[in-house]
């Protein structure tokens, strides 16, 4: 069985702390069914006082428009709190989808986790 079929509907979200910043490491596939899981994780972080979230999408292989809704919704909420959603490591289909929908310009997107972590 191909690895892609093993995680066909799964979304995995791990949480890491780098200095003072929370980094969410998202992998698998994000669609209508599981995008709310991502929003819930972000809401938990926001409830703890995080206003800037770094999200590593290096392991995300698929995102539908319902996943994009979640990214936009979280980014809007963080911005209203004076913070930001900082995405990094997009590749393949996910990067293509962000480019086509103009989200590369509207969201903060970085090449690496290191460059996504706010300095100062």
């Amino acid at each position, binding site marked *: 069985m191909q690895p892609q079929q093993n995680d*066909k*509907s799964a979304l995995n979200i791990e949480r890491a702390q780098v200095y003072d910043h929370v980094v969410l490491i998202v992998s698998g596939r994000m*669609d*209508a*069914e599981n995008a709310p899981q991502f929003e819930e994780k972000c809401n938990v972080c926001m409830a703890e006082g995080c206003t800037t979230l770094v999200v590593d999408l290096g392991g995300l*292989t*698929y995102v*539908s*428009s*319902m996943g*994009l*809704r979640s990214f*936009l*919704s979280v*980014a*809007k909420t963080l*911005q209203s709190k004076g913070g930001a959603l900082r995405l990094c490591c997009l590749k*393949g*289909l996910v990067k293509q*989808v962000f480019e*086509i*929908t*103009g989200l590369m*310009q*509207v*969201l903060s997107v970085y090449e690496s986790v290191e460059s996504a972590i706010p300095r100062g």
Partner: protein
Amino acid sequence: LSVSGASRSLTIAAKAESLGAVTEFVRKGAREASLPEERIGQVDLLIDELITNICIHAYRGDMPGDVTVTYSVPAPGELSVEVADQGAEFNPLKAEPPDLTSSLEARPIGGLGIHLVKTFAASLTYRRDQGWNRLTFGISASP
């Protein structure tokens, strides 16, 4: 759930939980057409967006219904897929294109799905046919 080998069509309840089965079904067609891996991800996305649209716009609220997905391989390296439902008339090709340049504050969170469909499909047609919405897309191995 019924699968007809000759016509290569699948009829299934139009709901989010059916997406996995429809995706698997259409991937068979993608493999028959020898589409490369990169295209198969795009086919997954087209199916996902179209089924999601049907669940939201064609069968609203507590009006459940079925979706019939039919694929064919008109030529090597080419896949044609029709997605049909008997819900309210809805032509997604007539939807207002999203403004992709507006700022984060001004950006609506929806409206991107059909834009993705229009971009990834090599061809895309809609027709209303005796109570059916019939949307057909083509995708090919070559860019």
